[in-house]
Protein backbone atom coordinates (compact mmCIF):
# COMPACT_ATOMS: atom_id res chain seq x y z
CA UNK A 1 0.00 0.00 0.00
CA UNK A 2 2.79 2.37 0.89
CA UNK A 3 4.31 1.79 -2.55
CA UNK A 4 1.09 2.84 -4.26
CA UNK A 5 0.89 5.93 -2.08
CA UNK A 6 4.47 6.83 -2.98
CA UNK A 7 3.67 6.41 -6.69
CA UNK A 8 0.95 9.04 -6.26
CA UNK A 9 3.07 11.38 -4.12
CA UNK A 10 5.95 11.39 -6.66
CA UNK A 11 3.64 13.39 -8.92
CA UNK A 12 2.97 16.19 -6.46
CA UNK A 13 4.78 19.53 -6.40
CA UNK A 14 6.92 20.44 -3.40
CA UNK A 15 4.41 22.83 -1.89
CA UNK A 16 1.68 20.17 -1.69
CA UNK A 17 4.10 17.59 -0.31
CA UNK A 18 5.24 19.88 2.49
CA UNK A 19 1.61 20.63 3.40
CA UNK A 20 0.74 16.92 3.43
CA UNK A 21 3.40 16.22 6.04
CA UNK A 22 0.57 17.34 8.32
CA UNK A 23 -1.73 14.48 7.24
CA UNK A 24 -0.23 11.92 9.63
CA UNK A 25 3.05 10.78 11.12
CA UNK A 26 3.47 8.09 8.50
CA UNK A 27 2.94 10.57 5.65
CA UNK A 28 5.46 12.84 7.33
CA UNK A 29 8.02 10.08 7.47
CA UNK A 30 7.43 9.00 3.84
CA UNK A 31 7.80 12.55 2.52
CA UNK A 32 10.88 13.23 4.67
CA UNK A 33 12.60 9.96 3.74
CA UNK A 34 15.89 10.13 1.89
CA UNK A 35 14.86 7.50 -0.67
CA UNK A 36 11.60 9.32 -1.42
CA UNK A 37 13.38 12.67 -1.79
CA UNK A 38 15.92 11.21 -4.24
CA UNK A 39 13.31 9.38 -6.30
CA UNK A 40 11.05 12.45 -6.43
CA UNK A 41 13.98 14.50 -7.73
CA UNK A 42 14.93 11.86 -10.29
CA UNK A 43 11.38 11.69 -11.63
CA UNK A 44 10.97 15.47 -11.73
CA UNK A 45 14.12 15.75 -13.85
CA UNK A 46 13.03 12.86 -16.09
CA UNK A 47 9.55 14.31 -16.66
CA UNK A 48 10.87 17.68 -17.71
CA UNK A 49 13.49 15.97 -19.87
CA UNK A 50 10.82 14.32 -22.01
CA UNK A 51 8.55 17.35 -22.00
CA UNK A 52 10.89 19.60 -24.01
CA UNK A 53 11.39 23.19 -22.93
CA UNK A 54 7.88 24.42 -23.72
CA UNK A 55 6.33 22.27 -21.02
CA UNK A 56 8.67 22.56 -18.03
CA UNK A 57 6.67 22.04 -14.84
CA UNK A 58 9.33 21.03 -12.32
CA UNK A 59 11.89 23.70 -13.14
CA UNK A 60 11.84 27.36 -12.22
CA UNK A 61 13.82 30.46 -13.00
CA UNK A 62 15.89 32.12 -10.28
CA UNK A 63 17.54 35.45 -10.93
CA UNK A 64 19.20 38.39 -9.27
CA UNK A 65 17.90 41.80 -10.22
CA UNK A 66 18.82 45.34 -9.39
CA UNK A 67 16.96 46.96 -6.57
CA UNK A 68 17.01 50.67 -5.82
CA UNK A 69 16.28 51.99 -2.37
CA UNK A 70 16.83 55.24 -0.49
CA UNK A 71 17.59 56.47 2.98
CA UNK A 72 17.65 60.13 4.03
CA UNK A 73 20.94 60.85 2.30
CA UNK A 74 21.54 58.35 -0.45
CA UNK A 75 20.05 56.30 -3.20
CA UNK A 76 21.45 52.81 -3.10
CA UNK A 77 21.58 50.28 -5.84
CA UNK A 78 21.71 46.70 -4.77
CA UNK A 79 20.72 43.27 -5.99
CA UNK A 80 18.20 40.79 -4.69
CA UNK A 81 16.55 37.53 -5.70
CA UNK A 82 13.41 36.72 -7.64
CA UNK A 83 11.94 33.52 -8.90
CA UNK A 84 9.20 32.61 -11.34
CA UNK A 85 7.57 29.68 -13.03
CA UNK A 86 8.72 28.64 -16.52
CA UNK A 87 5.26 27.48 -17.41
CA UNK A 88 3.24 30.62 -16.91
CA UNK A 89 0.57 32.11 -19.11
CA UNK A 90 2.29 33.64 -22.12
CA UNK A 91 -0.15 36.52 -22.31
CA UNK A 92 0.48 37.83 -18.81
CA UNK A 93 3.75 38.94 -17.26
CA UNK A 94 5.19 36.12 -15.15
CA UNK A 95 4.39 36.46 -11.45
CA UNK A 96 7.58 37.06 -9.51
CA UNK A 97 7.50 35.11 -6.31
CA UNK A 98 8.90 36.55 -3.11
CA UNK A 99 11.92 34.61 -2.08
CA UNK A 100 14.79 34.48 0.43
CA UNK A 101 16.16 37.95 -0.24
CA UNK A 102 13.77 40.22 -2.07
CA UNK A 103 14.42 43.44 -0.16
CA UNK A 104 18.10 44.11 0.34
CA UNK A 105 19.41 45.38 3.61
CA UNK A 106 22.16 48.04 3.30
CA UNK A 107 24.14 46.18 5.93
CA UNK A 108 23.95 42.88 4.06
CA UNK A 109 24.38 44.34 0.60
CA UNK A 110 23.76 42.60 -2.70
CA UNK A 111 23.44 38.93 -3.36
CA UNK A 112 25.20 36.62 -5.80
CA UNK A 113 24.16 33.19 -7.04
CA UNK A 114 27.40 31.24 -6.60
CA UNK A 115 26.38 27.69 -7.39
CA UNK A 116 23.43 25.47 -8.14
CA UNK A 117 22.72 21.77 -8.26
CA UNK A 118 19.71 19.50 -7.69
CA UNK A 119 17.51 22.35 -6.53
CA UNK A 120 19.98 23.63 -3.95
CA UNK A 121 21.45 27.07 -4.50
CA UNK A 122 24.63 28.56 -3.07
CA UNK A 123 24.07 32.22 -2.26
CA UNK A 124 26.74 34.73 -1.32
CA UNK A 125 26.25 38.02 0.45
CA UNK A 126 29.35 39.97 -0.49
CA UNK A 127 29.38 42.75 2.03
CA UNK A 128 29.11 40.55 5.09
CA UNK A 129 31.05 37.59 3.64
CA UNK A 130 28.29 35.10 4.20
CA UNK A 131 27.54 31.89 2.33
CA UNK A 132 24.15 30.29 2.43
CA UNK A 133 23.06 26.94 1.04
CA UNK A 134 19.42 27.35 0.23
CA UNK A 135 16.56 25.33 -1.17
CA UNK A 136 14.15 27.86 -2.72
CA UNK A 137 11.45 25.18 -3.14
CA UNK A 138 11.24 24.35 0.57
CA UNK A 139 12.54 27.79 1.75
CA UNK A 140 15.02 25.99 4.04
CA UNK A 141 18.57 27.25 4.27
CA UNK A 142 21.76 26.74 6.16
CA UNK A 143 24.68 29.05 6.78
CA UNK A 144 28.01 27.67 5.60
CA UNK A 145 31.10 29.00 7.34
CA UNK A 146 32.96 31.45 5.12
CA UNK A 147 36.41 30.28 4.05
CA UNK A 148 39.37 32.16 5.45
CA UNK A 149 42.50 32.54 3.35
CA UNK A 150 46.06 33.41 4.07
CA UNK A 151 46.50 37.15 3.74
CA UNK A 152 49.20 37.59 1.14
CA UNK A 153 51.66 40.47 1.09
CA UNK A 154 51.26 42.95 -1.80
CA UNK A 155 47.72 41.81 -2.27
CA UNK A 156 45.04 44.39 -1.90
CA UNK A 157 42.59 43.03 -4.41
CA UNK A 158 41.35 39.54 -4.99
CA UNK A 159 38.54 37.72 -6.72
CA UNK A 160 36.74 34.65 -5.47
CA UNK A 161 34.89 32.04 -7.46
CA UNK A 162 32.64 29.47 -5.85
CA UNK A 163 31.01 26.25 -6.96
CA UNK A 164 28.56 23.77 -5.48
CA UNK A 165 29.17 20.04 -5.96
CA UNK A 166 26.96 17.07 -5.08
CA UNK A 167 27.54 13.35 -4.84
CA UNK A 168 24.39 11.46 -5.86
CA UNK A 169 25.33 8.32 -3.99
CA UNK A 170 26.45 9.63 -0.63
CA UNK A 171 24.31 12.76 -0.67
CA UNK A 172 27.37 14.75 0.36
CA UNK A 173 27.80 18.34 -0.74
CA UNK A 174 31.00 20.21 -1.26
CA UNK A 175 31.63 23.88 -1.88
CA UNK A 176 34.74 25.06 -3.70
CA UNK A 177 36.24 28.51 -3.34
CA UNK A 178 39.02 29.63 -5.69
CA UNK A 179 40.71 32.83 -4.63
CA UNK A 180 42.80 34.75 -7.12
CA UNK A 181 45.08 37.42 -5.62
CA UNK A 182 46.36 38.46 -9.03
CA UNK A 183 49.62 36.54 -8.82
CA UNK A 184 48.73 33.64 -6.58
CA UNK A 185 45.84 31.21 -6.36
CA UNK A 186 44.42 29.48 -3.33
CA UNK A 187 41.70 26.84 -3.46
CA UNK A 188 39.63 25.47 -0.60
CA UNK A 189 36.93 22.85 -0.37
CA UNK A 190 34.17 22.63 2.20
CA UNK A 191 32.53 19.23 2.82
CA UNK A 192 29.09 18.82 4.36
CA UNK A 193 30.26 15.66 6.14
CA UNK A 194 33.13 17.32 7.93
CA UNK A 195 31.54 20.77 8.08
CA UNK A 196 34.96 22.33 7.51
CA UNK A 197 37.23 23.80 4.82
CA UNK A 198 40.44 22.19 3.64
CA UNK A 199 43.06 23.53 1.27
CA UNK A 200 43.57 21.71 -2.00
CA UNK A 201 45.97 22.18 -4.89
CA UNK A 202 45.12 25.12 -7.11
CA UNK A 203 44.74 24.93 -10.84
CA UNK A 204 46.94 27.99 -11.16
CA UNK A 205 45.35 29.80 -14.04
CA UNK A 206 43.18 32.85 -14.15
CA UNK A 207 39.47 32.29 -14.59
CA UNK A 208 37.81 34.08 -17.43
CA UNK A 209 35.62 36.99 -16.48
CA UNK A 210 32.07 35.95 -15.80
CA UNK A 211 33.26 32.54 -14.66
CA UNK A 212 32.93 33.21 -10.95
CA UNK A 213 30.28 30.56 -10.44
CA UNK A 214 31.41 26.99 -11.13
CA UNK A 215 29.05 25.01 -13.33
CA UNK A 216 27.95 21.59 -12.08
CA UNK A 217 27.55 19.22 -15.03
CA UNK A 218 28.07 15.47 -15.28
CA UNK A 219 29.16 15.13 -11.66
CA UNK A 220 31.95 17.69 -11.98
CA UNK A 221 32.47 21.40 -11.47
CA UNK A 222 33.61 23.52 -14.38
CA UNK A 223 35.13 26.93 -14.92
CA UNK A 224 36.53 28.69 -17.94
CA UNK A 225 40.26 29.28 -17.50
CA UNK A 226 42.59 31.44 -19.57
CA UNK A 227 45.39 29.84 -21.53
CA UNK A 228 47.71 32.85 -21.17
CA UNK A 229 48.08 35.99 -19.10
CA UNK A 230 46.78 38.39 -21.71
CA UNK A 231 44.65 41.00 -20.03
CA UNK A 232 42.02 41.25 -22.71
CA UNK A 233 38.87 39.18 -22.71
CA UNK A 234 39.95 37.72 -26.03
CA UNK A 235 42.52 35.28 -24.81
CA UNK A 236 41.93 31.64 -25.56
CA UNK A 237 40.42 29.50 -22.85
CA UNK A 238 39.95 25.92 -21.80
CA UNK A 239 37.30 24.52 -19.55
CA UNK A 240 38.78 23.12 -16.36
CA UNK A 241 36.83 20.45 -14.57
CA UNK A 242 37.16 19.29 -11.00
CA UNK A 243 35.88 15.98 -9.63
CA UNK A 244 35.49 16.04 -5.86
CA UNK A 245 34.46 12.40 -5.43
CA UNK A 246 37.82 11.19 -4.09
CA UNK A 247 37.83 10.80 -0.33
CA UNK A 248 41.55 11.27 0.14
CA UNK A 249 41.34 14.83 -1.15
CA UNK A 250 43.58 14.02 -4.11
CA UNK A 251 41.27 15.86 -6.41
CA UNK A 252 42.12 15.97 -10.08
CA UNK A 253 41.69 18.76 -12.55
CA UNK A 254 41.09 17.97 -16.18
CA UNK A 255 40.80 20.26 -19.13
CA UNK A 256 38.19 20.22 -21.85
CA UNK A 257 39.12 21.85 -25.09
CA UNK A 258 37.01 24.64 -26.52
CA UNK A 259 38.75 24.77 -29.91
CA UNK A 260 35.43 25.39 -31.62
CA UNK A 261 35.45 29.03 -30.54
CA UNK A 262 37.18 31.86 -32.35
CA UNK A 263 38.43 33.79 -29.33
CA UNK A 264 39.68 36.67 -31.43
CA UNK A 265 36.12 37.62 -32.26
CA UNK A 266 34.70 38.47 -28.84
CA UNK A 267 34.08 37.33 -25.29
CA UNK A 268 33.14 33.84 -24.19
CA UNK A 269 31.17 32.70 -21.16
CA UNK A 270 30.65 29.22 -19.75
CA UNK A 271 27.05 28.15 -19.11
CA UNK A 272 25.30 25.20 -17.52
CA UNK A 273 22.52 24.50 -19.99
CA UNK A 274 20.49 22.11 -17.88
CA UNK A 275 22.91 19.21 -17.74
CA UNK A 276 25.00 20.23 -20.76
CA UNK A 277 28.07 22.42 -20.88
CA UNK A 278 27.49 25.44 -23.07
CA UNK A 279 29.54 28.36 -24.29
CA UNK A 280 28.07 31.73 -25.05
CA UNK A 281 30.14 33.65 -27.59
CA UNK A 282 29.42 37.36 -27.57
CA UNK A 283 30.93 38.60 -30.80
CA UNK A 284 32.23 42.09 -31.57
CA UNK A 285 29.27 42.81 -33.82
CA UNK A 286 26.92 42.15 -30.87
CA UNK A 287 25.79 38.78 -32.09
CA UNK A 288 25.44 35.86 -29.70
CA UNK A 289 26.30 32.28 -30.59
CA UNK A 290 25.53 29.41 -28.28
CA UNK A 291 27.61 26.23 -28.45
CA UNK A 292 26.75 23.01 -26.67
CA UNK A 293 28.97 20.06 -25.87
CA UNK A 294 26.37 17.49 -26.88
CA UNK A 295 28.35 14.57 -25.54
CA UNK A 296 30.20 15.30 -22.35
CA UNK A 297 33.97 15.18 -22.77
CA UNK A 298 33.87 14.72 -26.55
CA UNK A 299 35.59 17.67 -28.19
CA UNK A 300 34.08 16.91 -31.60
CA UNK A 301 30.57 17.19 -30.19
CA UNK A 302 30.70 20.98 -29.70
CA UNK A 303 27.84 22.25 -31.85
CA UNK A 304 26.55 25.71 -32.51
CA UNK A 305 22.89 25.45 -31.58
CA UNK A 306 21.61 29.02 -31.55
CA UNK A 307 22.40 32.39 -33.05
CA UNK A 308 20.84 35.64 -31.91
CA UNK A 309 20.89 37.27 -35.35
CA UNK A 310 18.50 34.58 -36.57
CA UNK A 311 15.89 36.48 -34.59
CA UNK A 312 15.20 39.99 -35.76
CA UNK A 313 12.04 40.51 -33.73
CA UNK A 314 12.05 42.68 -30.63
CA UNK A 315 15.45 44.06 -31.40
CA UNK A 316 14.56 47.21 -29.44
CA UNK A 317 13.32 45.27 -26.45
CA UNK A 318 16.43 43.18 -26.10
CA UNK A 319 18.80 46.09 -25.75
CA UNK A 320 22.45 45.11 -26.08
CA UNK A 321 23.69 41.61 -26.68
CA UNK A 322 24.60 41.45 -22.99
CA UNK A 323 20.93 40.98 -22.21
CA UNK A 324 20.86 37.65 -24.01
CA UNK A 325 21.64 34.55 -22.00
CA UNK A 326 21.01 30.90 -22.78
CA UNK A 327 19.66 28.98 -19.79
CA UNK A 328 18.77 25.49 -20.88
CA UNK A 329 19.14 23.19 -23.88
CA UNK A 330 17.59 19.86 -24.84
CA UNK A 331 18.52 17.14 -27.30
CA UNK A 332 15.40 17.90 -29.36
CA UNK A 333 17.00 21.27 -30.13
CA UNK A 334 14.85 23.39 -27.79
CA UNK A 335 16.74 26.20 -26.11
CA UNK A 336 15.59 28.55 -23.35
CA UNK A 337 17.05 32.03 -23.60
CA UNK A 338 16.71 35.22 -21.57
CA UNK A 339 16.21 37.93 -24.13
CA UNK A 340 15.89 41.38 -22.63
CA UNK A 341 12.80 41.21 -20.45
CA UNK A 342 11.62 38.06 -22.17
CA UNK A 343 12.10 34.35 -21.81
CA UNK A 344 12.19 32.67 -25.18
CA UNK A 345 11.98 29.02 -26.04
CA UNK A 346 13.47 28.57 -29.50
CA UNK A 347 14.20 25.63 -31.73
CA UNK A 348 16.50 26.35 -34.63
CA UNK A 349 15.19 29.58 -36.10
CA UNK A 350 11.71 29.10 -34.68
CA UNK A 351 10.36 30.91 -31.65
CA UNK A 352 8.14 28.42 -29.79
CA UNK A 353 7.23 30.36 -26.68
CA UNK A 354 7.67 33.81 -25.29
CA UNK A 355 6.87 35.14 -21.84
CA UNK A 356 7.64 38.42 -20.14
CA UNK A 357 9.32 38.65 -16.74
CA UNK A 358 9.04 42.23 -15.49
CA UNK A 359 12.14 42.43 -13.33
CA UNK A 360 14.57 40.90 -15.80
CA UNK A 361 17.01 43.33 -17.30
CA UNK A 362 20.41 43.24 -18.93
CA UNK A 363 22.24 42.95 -15.62
CA UNK A 364 20.45 39.87 -14.45
CA UNK A 365 22.18 36.72 -13.49
CA UNK A 366 19.73 33.90 -13.98
CA UNK A 367 19.65 30.16 -13.64
CA UNK A 368 17.11 27.40 -14.07
CA UNK A 369 16.76 25.03 -11.13
CA UNK A 370 14.75 21.89 -10.49
CA UNK A 371 12.31 21.93 -7.58
CA UNK A 372 13.44 19.38 -5.02
CA UNK A 373 12.95 18.36 -1.38
CA UNK A 374 16.68 18.06 -0.65
CA UNK A 375 17.47 19.54 2.69
CA UNK A 376 20.48 21.84 2.97
CA UNK A 377 20.89 20.99 6.64
CA UNK A 378 21.22 17.21 6.79
CA UNK A 379 23.18 16.40 3.69
CA UNK A 380 25.81 13.72 3.72
CA UNK A 381 25.10 12.68 7.28
CA UNK A 382 24.24 9.03 7.68
CA UNK A 383 20.78 8.66 9.09
Amino acid at each position, binding site marked *: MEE*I*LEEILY*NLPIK*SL*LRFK*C*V*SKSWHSIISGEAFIKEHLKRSIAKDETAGLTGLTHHKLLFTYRYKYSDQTHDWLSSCLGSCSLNCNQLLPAAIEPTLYDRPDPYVGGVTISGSCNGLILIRFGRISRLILWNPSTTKYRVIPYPSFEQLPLSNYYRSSFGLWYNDESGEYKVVCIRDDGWCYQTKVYGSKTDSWTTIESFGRRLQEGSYCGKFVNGRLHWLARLDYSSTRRCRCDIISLDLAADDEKYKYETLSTNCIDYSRGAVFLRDLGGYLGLMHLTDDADVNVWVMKEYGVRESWTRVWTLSDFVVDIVERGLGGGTKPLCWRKNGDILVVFGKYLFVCNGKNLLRKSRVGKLDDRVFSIVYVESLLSPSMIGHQQ
Partner: protein
Amino acid sequence: MAAETGTPTTLTLKSNDDELFSVAESAAILSVTIRNMVEDGCAGGVIPLDNVDGKTLASVITYMNGISAIPADEEKKKSYRDKFLSDKDFETLADMVLAANYLNMSCLMDAVSAKIAQVMEKKSVGWVRRKFGIENDYTPEEEAAVKEEHKWTFEGVETDDDN
Protein backbone atom coordinates in the same frame (compact mmCIF):
# COMPACT_ATOMS: atom_id res chain seq x y z
CA MET B 1 2.31 -15.80 -26.55
CA ALA B 2 -0.74 -17.40 -28.12
CA ALA B 3 -0.29 -19.59 -31.16
CA GLU B 4 -1.12 -18.02 -34.49
CA THR B 5 -4.73 -18.74 -35.21
CA GLY B 6 -7.29 -17.23 -37.55
CA THR B 7 -9.58 -15.85 -34.87
CA PRO B 8 -8.46 -13.66 -31.99
CA THR B 9 -8.48 -15.44 -28.64
CA THR B 10 -10.94 -14.20 -26.07
CA LEU B 11 -10.43 -14.46 -22.32
CA THR B 12 -13.07 -14.48 -19.61
CA LEU B 13 -12.27 -12.44 -16.51
CA LYS B 14 -14.17 -12.76 -13.24
CA SER B 15 -14.37 -9.93 -10.72
CA ASN B 16 -14.45 -10.51 -6.96
CA ASP B 17 -18.20 -9.91 -6.98
CA ASP B 18 -18.64 -12.67 -9.57
CA GLU B 19 -19.25 -10.63 -12.70
CA LEU B 20 -17.92 -12.16 -15.91
CA PHE B 21 -16.27 -10.15 -18.69
CA SER B 22 -15.06 -11.17 -22.14
CA VAL B 23 -12.00 -9.42 -23.44
CA ALA B 24 -9.65 -9.99 -26.36
CA GLU B 25 -6.44 -11.63 -25.17
CA SER B 26 -4.41 -9.09 -27.09
CA ALA B 27 -5.94 -6.30 -24.96
CA ALA B 28 -5.98 -8.21 -21.67
CA ILE B 29 -2.26 -8.99 -21.73
CA LEU B 30 -1.56 -5.30 -21.14
CA SER B 31 -1.86 -6.60 -17.61
CA VAL B 32 1.34 -8.41 -16.74
CA THR B 33 -0.58 -10.39 -14.12
CA ILE B 34 -2.98 -11.72 -16.77
CA ARG B 35 -0.18 -12.24 -19.29
CA ASN B 36 1.69 -14.42 -16.82
CA MET B 37 -1.45 -16.48 -16.27
CA VAL B 38 -1.90 -16.91 -20.02
CA GLU B 39 1.73 -17.90 -20.46
CA ASP B 40 1.46 -20.38 -17.61
CA GLY B 41 -1.53 -21.92 -19.35
CA CYS B 42 -4.03 -21.00 -16.62
CA ALA B 43 -6.24 -19.05 -18.99
CA GLY B 44 -8.22 -21.96 -20.36
CA GLY B 45 -11.31 -21.30 -18.32
CA VAL B 46 -12.26 -18.26 -16.31
CA ILE B 47 -9.55 -15.99 -14.87
CA PRO B 48 -10.52 -14.95 -11.34
CA LEU B 49 -9.34 -11.51 -10.27
CA ASP B 50 -9.87 -11.55 -6.54
CA ASN B 51 -8.86 -7.98 -5.83
CA VAL B 52 -10.99 -6.13 -8.39
CA ASP B 53 -14.72 -5.48 -8.23
CA GLY B 54 -17.00 -5.57 -11.26
CA LYS B 55 -17.44 -1.81 -11.61
CA THR B 56 -13.70 -1.18 -11.60
CA LEU B 57 -12.94 -4.14 -13.84
CA ALA B 58 -15.47 -2.90 -16.41
CA SER B 59 -13.66 0.43 -16.45
CA VAL B 60 -10.22 -1.21 -16.73
CA ILE B 61 -11.45 -3.33 -19.65
CA THR B 62 -12.77 -0.23 -21.41
CA TYR B 63 -9.26 1.19 -21.01
CA MET B 64 -7.59 -2.03 -22.23
CA ASN B 65 -9.72 -2.07 -25.36
CA GLY B 66 -9.33 1.64 -26.01
CA ILE B 67 -5.57 1.85 -25.58
CA SER B 68 -4.78 -1.36 -27.48
CA ALA B 69 -6.77 -0.07 -30.47
CA ILE B 70 -4.32 2.81 -30.80
CA PRO B 71 -1.22 2.09 -32.88
CA ALA B 72 2.22 2.82 -31.45
CA ASP B 73 1.85 6.56 -31.08
CA GLU B 74 2.72 7.79 -27.60
CA GLU B 75 1.05 11.18 -28.15
CA LYS B 76 -2.27 9.59 -29.11
CA LYS B 77 -2.07 7.10 -26.27
CA LYS B 78 -1.43 9.91 -23.83
CA SER B 79 -4.40 11.91 -25.03
CA TYR B 80 -6.59 8.79 -24.83
CA ARG B 81 -5.48 8.26 -21.22
CA ASP B 82 -6.14 11.91 -20.35
CA LYS B 83 -9.62 11.73 -21.81
CA PHE B 84 -10.36 8.36 -20.23
CA LEU B 85 -9.52 9.69 -16.75
CA SER B 86 -10.93 13.19 -17.12
CA ASP B 87 -14.41 12.49 -15.74
CA LYS B 88 -13.46 10.01 -13.00
CA ASP B 89 -14.05 11.00 -9.38
CA PHE B 90 -11.58 10.39 -6.58
CA GLU B 91 -13.17 7.14 -5.36
CA THR B 92 -13.13 5.65 -8.86
CA LEU B 93 -9.51 6.71 -9.34
CA ALA B 94 -8.55 5.21 -5.98
CA ASP B 95 -10.18 1.86 -6.92
CA MET B 96 -8.47 2.02 -10.27
CA VAL B 97 -4.98 2.62 -8.91
CA LEU B 98 -5.36 -0.44 -6.68
CA ALA B 99 -6.61 -2.47 -9.64
CA ALA B 100 -3.79 -1.23 -11.90
CA ASN B 101 -1.29 -2.20 -9.22
CA TYR B 102 -2.81 -5.66 -8.74
CA LEU B 103 -3.06 -6.25 -12.49
CA ASN B 104 0.48 -4.88 -12.95
CA MET B 105 -0.40 -2.37 -15.69
CA SER B 106 2.32 0.24 -15.45
CA CYS B 107 0.94 2.64 -18.06
CA LEU B 108 -2.45 2.82 -16.29
CA MET B 109 -0.76 2.96 -12.89
CA ASP B 110 1.35 5.96 -13.92
CA ALA B 111 -1.56 7.78 -15.50
CA VAL B 112 -3.94 7.23 -12.56
CA SER B 113 -1.27 8.17 -10.00
CA ALA B 114 -0.62 11.40 -11.86
CA LYS B 115 -4.35 12.11 -12.10
CA ILE B 116 -4.89 11.53 -8.37
CA ALA B 117 -1.98 13.87 -7.63
CA GLN B 118 -3.51 16.48 -9.90
CA VAL B 119 -6.81 16.22 -7.98
CA MET B 120 -5.00 16.43 -4.61
CA GLU B 121 -2.58 19.20 -5.43
CA LYS B 122 -4.51 22.13 -3.97
CA LYS B 123 -6.59 20.21 -1.43
CA SER B 124 -6.53 20.67 2.32
CA VAL B 125 -4.97 18.28 4.81
CA GLY B 126 -8.48 17.45 6.10
CA TRP B 127 -9.67 16.54 2.63
CA VAL B 128 -6.73 14.18 2.14
CA ARG B 129 -7.34 12.50 5.49
CA ARG B 130 -11.03 11.92 4.67
CA LYS B 131 -10.44 10.66 1.13
CA PHE B 132 -7.57 8.37 2.06
CA GLY B 133 -9.25 7.26 5.28
CA ILE B 134 -6.34 8.33 7.44
CA GLU B 135 -6.60 8.95 11.12
CA ASN B 136 -4.76 11.98 12.40
CA ASP B 137 -2.22 10.54 14.85
CA TYR B 138 -0.62 13.85 15.79
CA THR B 139 -1.31 15.48 19.12
CA PRO B 140 -2.71 19.00 18.62
CA GLU B 141 0.68 20.42 19.70
CA GLU B 142 2.61 18.23 17.25
CA GLU B 143 0.29 19.08 14.40
CA ALA B 144 0.54 22.79 15.14
CA ALA B 145 4.34 22.52 15.12
CA VAL B 146 4.45 20.74 11.73
CA LYS B 147 1.97 23.24 10.33
CA GLU B 148 3.95 26.18 11.66
CA GLU B 149 7.12 24.87 10.01
CA HIS B 150 5.44 24.86 6.60
CA LYS B 151 2.95 27.67 7.10
CA TRP B 152 3.41 29.11 3.61
CA THR B 153 2.25 25.86 1.99
CA PHE B 154 -1.24 26.44 3.41
CA GLU B 155 -1.77 29.50 1.22
CA GLY B 156 -3.90 29.04 -1.87
CA VAL B 157 -5.53 25.81 -0.66
CA GLU B 158 -8.99 25.14 -2.10
CA THR B 159 -11.92 25.12 0.28
CA ASP B 160 -13.21 21.61 0.83
CA ASP B 161 -16.21 20.65 -1.24
CA ASP B 162 -15.39 16.95 -0.96
CA ASN B 163 -15.46 16.41 -4.66
